[in-house]
């Protein structure tokens, strides 16, 4: 008897688990708790037993009934709730925790690094405060070279003498050259350059790097070709800011050196890179340029995607967007790195990170990148 009751209880509970709708629940109630239900039948069956047995079993039946009724009430309650749930309005906003956002320049930089990495380029980086030697002299721009004007420099005041280890290694520098520069008659101080202190020598004044090329020679000093690297990094200019000009921005430098790395290889790498960056074939143009640290020097343009080369504000009516400066590394730069002249050849390029980012997302003002404005940042 006890066994049978226990079995009945388990069965009832199991059946209750699978009840899904109100009608099913009612059916269950009738089956087990109703006047003709299983429990009632069981109770009726007790009549054949002896008095003591009958009482004992009767008690157990009542206990089971009580428990089943409680379960039934609970199931009924939850069904009612579920009905309320099913009337939920799914046009309500979803529930989630707020996600943060990576800066669009971080995303673009990651993407660019990834593309170059899949082409076997390593990613290198150098310091942001460099010596004049790093930024100019080692790149074939001795003091007073007119090309230095191409980079408006921000100079850092330094209290001590800097020993430039590169000066010893290089064959270009003349460490004992002193300049008699003094600054006069320059009230706006716009072109202020630090006076050379008697203990400093040429090439050792400090500045915020004006281009990522400032790391080329240091890298080459520490590595033997062949190699291929990109150097993404922050650079600084003495420049007034406006919608297309910034005082602090990012560049991606590239350098590939080997026995026979040619301008044709430069085109090969760049065509593949831009095809992947813009996710389609893009029309590129190579034309003459000038940098003291490359010869031949190139400028690379891209056909304006905004107007299909018909001419527009974006491309200043020319149909072309400037992408980067580049060229074949100058032998004087190899010499500064301690390589034997004529033994190696390679290409170098420098492009802005902001330009492709602005093109990718349609951003119209470069100052937004350093604004810290959440209205801008959370769009990415």
């Amino acid at each position, binding site marked *: 008897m006890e066994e049978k009751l226990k079995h009945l209880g388990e069965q009832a509970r199991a059946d209750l688990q699978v009840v899904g709708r109100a009608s099913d629940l009612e059916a269950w109630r009738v089956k087990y708790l109703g006047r003709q239900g299983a429990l009632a039948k069981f109770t009726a069956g007790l009549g054949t037993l002896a008095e003591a047995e009958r009482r004992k079993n009767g008690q157990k039946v009542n206990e089971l009934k009580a428990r089943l009724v409680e379960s039934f009430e609970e199931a009924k309650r939850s069904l009612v709730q579920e009905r309320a749930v099913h009337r939920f309005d799914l046009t309500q906003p979803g529930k989630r925790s*707020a*996600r*943060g*956002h*990576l800066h669009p320049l971080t995303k673009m930089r990651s993407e660019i690094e990834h593309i170059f*990495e899949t082409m*076997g380029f*390593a*990613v290198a*980086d150098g*310091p*942001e*405060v460099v010596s004049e030697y790093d930024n100019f002299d080692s790149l074939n721009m001795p*003091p*007073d070279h*007119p*090309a230095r004007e191409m980079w408006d420099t921000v100079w*850092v005041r*330094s209290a*001590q003498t*800097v*020993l430039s280890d590169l000066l010893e290694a290089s064959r270009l520098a003349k460490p004992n050259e002193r300049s*008699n*520069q*003094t600054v*006069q*008659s*320059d009230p706006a101080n716009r*072109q*202020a350059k630090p006076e050379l202190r008697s203990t400093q020598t040429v090439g050792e004044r*400090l500045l*915020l790097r004006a281009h990522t090329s400032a790391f080329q020679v240091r890298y080459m000093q520490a590595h033997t070709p062949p190699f291929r*690297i990109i150097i993404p990094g*922050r650079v600084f200019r003495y*420049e007034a800011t406006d919608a297309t000009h910034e005082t602090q921005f990012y560049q991606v430098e590239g350098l590939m050196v*080997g026995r026979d790395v*040619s*301008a*044709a*290889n430069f*085109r*090969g*790498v760049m065509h*593949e890179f831009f095809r992947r960056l813009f996710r389609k074939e893009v029309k590129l*143009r190579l*034309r*003459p340029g*000038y940098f*003291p640290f490359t*010869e*031949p020097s*190139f400028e690379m343009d891209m056909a304006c995607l905004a107007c299909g080369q018909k001419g527009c504000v974006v491309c200043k009516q020319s149909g072309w967007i400037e992408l980067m400066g580049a060229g*074949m590394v*100058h032998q004087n730069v190899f010499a500064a790195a301690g390589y034997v002249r004529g033994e190696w*050849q390679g290409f170098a390029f420098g492009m802005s990170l902001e330009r492709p980012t602005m093109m990718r997302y349609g951003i119209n003002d470069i100052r937004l990148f*350093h604004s*810290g*404005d*959440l209205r801008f*940042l959370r769009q990415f």
Partner: protein
Amino acid sequence: MKFSYDWIREYAEGAPTPAKAAELLTTHAFEVKSVEQRGKDAVFDVDVLANRAADALSHVGIARELALLLAKSFTPPSVRVNESRSFPIADVPMPKIADDGLCPRYSLRAMRGVRVAPSPAWLTQRLETLGLRPINNVVDAANYVMLELGQPLHAFDAAKVRGPIQVRRAKSGERFMTLDNQTLELDPDALVIADSSGAIGLAGIKGGLSTGVDETTTGLLIEAANFQPANIRRSSVRFNLRTDAAVRFSRGVDPTLTTMALDRVAGLIRELAQGEVAWGSHDLYPNPREPQPIHFRLERINSLLGTSLTEAQVFGFLERLSFSVERVKAGVWRVAVPTYRPDLVAEEDLIEEVGRLNGFERIPVVAPATSIMPTESSEFRQWIGQVKQVMAGFGFTEAYNYAYVSAAELDLLGMRAEALELMNPVNTERPYLAPSLLARLMQNVADNFRFFPAVKLFEFAKTFRQGAGVWPLDERWCLAGVVAYRHAPARQRHDAVLEVKGLVEGVMEAFGVDDAWFDDAPASSTAYLAAGRWVEVKVGERVVGKIGEVAVEVAKHYGLADLVAFFELDPALLEELTEAEREFEPLPKYPALVRDISMFVPADTRIADIENVISTAGGELVEDMDLFDMYEPEGSEERRSVAFHIVYRAKDRTLSEKEIDTLHKKICKALETELSAEIR
């Protein structure tokens, strides 16, 4: 620089439409930024490359370049001057140049009986189109020839020049008044044209008032000279006089141009102002520049460019360039470059010439054939990428800020002494490099509070400090961030610091750093964090950062009355310490039992203290504890209510209820005794 296309056309036969010419120059020489119609003429704005200034900052130069690109002939202007036998140049004393190489060439012509008057229309129009102001027929003629040939010229009123012309360094403090009535105080680095009275011209840059040509002038001394570019450039910058002459001399001018320019201008002045030209000229050219021939190899051209040019093709280009070429052997030449191309000194320079004449677009597109073995990659960079993702996942947004701070901000940070100053800051109010990311992040909070009540930002950038070693600065990466709630009630403000703590804990957990912990701040204080309200972040014994509340004075500076929570980490150090891989822990064999414990404790009891008592009293069998409730009951400031789940588990057996009861009681007793807790 602006050029008149009509003018260029005079020297280049068969010149095409302006648009076509502009396209050709852009793709094969230098960029034509714009073409503007001016009546029948077109004005080109050309970005002449810095190394082509010597030959291409003149109409003749551009015309020669255009003719070269068109493979057509180039007709230089005719230069014929009628000299007067009755007026020998010997009448004019020989100029003297000082010896130190600052003036490689000095040429002088003389004229007399000229009539200075306004220039005719054809001349003034040409000058005005190109942005020059007409003055009189003599000065205008000099400017005209400069624009035509690229050689700057200067005319002196001969009557006002006293004694022989000298080219020398200025004396210290020597004064000179320019044609524009500006008085300059000179120094020995400045080169001057002088007579016996003193400086009459700032060499290569500007003429002097005292010898200027005006309506009364009848006699002329016309100077065409050549100066050392570096010296002229320095003086031009120092005295802030960027004249057309200075720009040209700064880049270098062909020294062979002087005599040709003198002949041209003398002829032109005679045409416009009459007068006689003296017979002969003075020409001091002590060390004529001899261009060095360049050893030029076909195999090198094709190797560097990646082309397959033939010997015949290359020879053809060299001929077009009118370079004197000598064939040494098959595929090897000796090339002598004319003096007007001082930019061509090495083999690579000639390769560029051949390359652009052929057309850079004709260079094939060839992927390099190279080893597939990748070069090393920086683990730190990858690690940072992952950390940023984790932070974004925790709801923090990445900001990029300028690296500059003000003196006031440095004082608030307590970092004035170690900051680096800029000599020429872009923003004069922020002339220092940031030694901490806090300043700009605080500004971000203040700015964003206009539109957002909650701000959670992080930044990964370099910070800069004075250094102690050979390299005088310490430049290091910093990972920092802020959490701030605007007008938040006190509880939410405290939560801001806990969110920062949660972020740091989350980052540590994401990278499997087991022994990260937070240590009470050392006795020494930090100016920018509120005293007693910040802690150090440590991994083992190494300090990797700080978290806490920003000091009130700092917040006030940014107009913030609200609490701002801040963290800063040393990512380079942290990356080093997270290198160890995390270790798997086998799943537990035996079940755990969870008991709750609720208590009242004195209000200033720290959670860490409660946890310590529980784990000490409970020992090994306390696997974990979880604070699930905490509040300050109404009307009571002296106590708080705290509740924990305690998870008991043994590694080697199933714990019995009785064991746990005993242990649990022991823990309760310990809490009562040591912390005056009231167990509920």
